[in-house]
């Protein structure tokens, strides 16, 4: 399984902070996972439409759409950071 996390504005828009997806070719990269999520329509299609900046990490390291994702990994999606 792949653990998926959502933070901040994304978490609120999607109404969830975490879920799991089976490891598969459709979850082999953050880009592939986004493709999968958009198919759910509604807020999922909206959040990942590309209108708002979405950052991602794999195993708590900054990642991009093509970073490899394998079984047991943790993938997170979130807005640009605003701490400090």
């Amino acid at each position, binding site marked *: 399984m792949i653990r998926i996390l959502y933070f901040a504005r994304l978490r609120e828009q999607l109404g969830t902070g975490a879920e799991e997806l089976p490891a598969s070719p459709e979850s082999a990269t953050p880009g592939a996972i986004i493709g999968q999520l958009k198919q759910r329509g509604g807020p999922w299609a909206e959040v990942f439409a590309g209108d708002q900046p979405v950052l991602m990490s794999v195993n708590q390291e900054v990642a991009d759409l093509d970073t490899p994702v394998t079984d047991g990994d943790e993938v997170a999606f979130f807005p640009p*950071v*605003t*701490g400090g």
Partner: protein
Amino acid sequence: MDQITIQTTPFDIAAIQEEMRAGDPAIGALVTFVGQMRDFNDGDPVSAMTLEHYPGMTEKALQKILDQANRRWELLGIRVVHRVGELKPLDPIVLVAVASAHRGEAFRACEFVIDYLKTRAPFWKKERTPDGERWVDARVSDDEAEARWRDS
């Protein structure tokens, strides 16, 4: 000597500085940055703020920033404390303290750490204003501040 702490409770600025400073007579300079919550942002009064973060990734991201700072400058200790959860105006949000033998390195490293923290560490602010709650947008000026360090 370096330490990173994420906490919901207030932090004691004085105690942190004393701990860093008083132990080591090789230290000639201690530079401390404290960021505190303002009661006004983007033209609106702000009465409170909630800080969310990504536990685990936050610590990793900050550790990387500190490792870079230690490679770039001769330092004698770095301390980062960041609050999360509910905050009110005047509450300190973040502290970065850097000790060194000489002041130039302490100033450079302290500003480097806070500039990178602002763009690389997974924290998100949500403000409470008279019109309701809103997520704070990332600032272009923070990206520019970070970019300064890349070529130098």
